[in-house]
């Protein structure tokens, strides 16, 4: 494999980073909203959030992207590839993060919410200052785990025409016919992208652990 092929993989990497960034940002915002709805205590909203989670956790991301990009186009709604992946990743990531965070919010002892309520803290402050900081600690390993899967899941964006890292690897592999070598390098590049996230996760974990033994 020559330098040219390697540089080609790096341009794919660039797209992967951009797609991951979209997934992270949109997914986290959406996920937080879903988690809060799911734990709101309002029956209707909780049902709605649970339905959303069941629907978008249960369908493959690839299918979501396909439906948003090609399916909607079929009925005349032509979304650009960027909009399509943004929608697809948001639906997917917010469902998963929403459920992960919902679980950790539920795992914070009830006495904590009670104490906050008794101090007359409003919902926002109760969540932001009391519950979420403790929930984050429980959900951190799972969250990091999902985010690295999301990075790798961006490879599915090739279905709407992005030549991201995995697709670039495919192209190179079909040119030089050394799939083990090419996918080995692609694997390493993914590793280099995901690993810092893992490291950051453990760093954060240690910091939170110091605060509340």
């Amino acid at each position, binding site marked *: 494999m*020559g330098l*040219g*092929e390697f*540089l*080609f993989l790096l*341009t794919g990497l660039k797209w992967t980073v951009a797609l991951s960034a979209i997934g992270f940002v949109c997914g986290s915002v959406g996920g937080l909203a879903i988690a809060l709805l799911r734990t709101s205590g309002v029956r209707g909203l909780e049902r709605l959030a649970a339905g959303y989670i069941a629907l978008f956790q249960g369908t493959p991301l690839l299918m979501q992207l*396909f439906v948003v*990009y*090609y*399916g909607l*186009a*079929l*009925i*005349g709604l*032509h979304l650009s590839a960027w909009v399509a992946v943004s929608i697809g990743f948001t639906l997917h990531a917010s469902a998963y993060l929403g459920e992960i965070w919902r679980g950790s919010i539920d795992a914070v002892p009830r006495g904590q919410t009670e104490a906050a309520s008794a101090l007359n803290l409003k919902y926002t402050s109760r969540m932001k200052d009391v519950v979420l900081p403790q929930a984050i600690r429980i959900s951190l390993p799972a969250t990091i785990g999902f985010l690295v899967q999301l990075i790798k899941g961006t490879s599915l964006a*090739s*279905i709407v*025409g992005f*030549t991201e890292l995995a*697709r670039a690897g*495919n*192209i*190179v*592999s*079909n*040119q030089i*016919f050394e*799939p*083990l070598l090419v996918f080995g390098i692609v694997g390493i590049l993914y590793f280099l992208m995901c690993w810092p996230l893992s490291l950051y996760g453990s760093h954060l974990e240690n910091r939170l652990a110091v605060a509340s033994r």
Partner: protein
Amino acid sequence: TRPASAITTEEIKARGKIIVGIQGDNPPWGFVTSDGKQDGLDADMARLYAKELGVTVEFVPLEVSNRIPALTSGRVDVLFATMAMLPERAKAVQFSKPYVANAIVLIAPKSVEIKTNADMAKVSIGVAKGAAQDTQVTKNAPAGTTIRRYDGDAPSIQALVSGQVQAIGGNIFYLQRVEQARPGEFENKLEFQKLYNGACTRLGEKEVNASLNAFIDKIRANGELKKLYDKWMKVPVHQFPDSLEGIPFSAS
């Protein structure tokens, strides 16, 4: 279902650009080079056609599985995407006249005797999922033959090389790749079918189809197609049939 974005040659000319669906990872038909340029026989065909219309080309690299959806949903105007002309496909898209021929073959070790379709039952066979060789091997192999379907050409060749299968179905370019990995061990055993590739448009879009057919007739006549054959296929230009069972070349 409402009409997808139908388009005419006039509209393409007015836009100054034709959007072509093409394969990105299937040399020498259609592939992206390591400096990111679209290349291959299909790419050159598309460029010639664009020149004919006097417009520029925008390539949309596609995978095997989203070629037809990209066309039917209006994401591209036309496919030059190694689309083998098959009757079932012709129900979903409108083929033009054929512009290149391909053959589907079975590759196996020299030591294994495979002379007839029935002999295929002796081995496990790998194919690229959804490609023409998949269809052909599935159709011709005796019932009960182990057929393993992989994601694309490279993995199916890798499966042969690493011994996960004993034979693979492939096209005329496969053997040369297998030779690179394991020289002297394999040979072409059976040839199933001559396949023709055509350009595709949406069903019912008469104008673009007609213009494509005229274009193909023209390059066959003026020697442009021969140049492409010399560049990519390295064989003489094939004889193309005037009709294929169940595959109309012109839109009705």
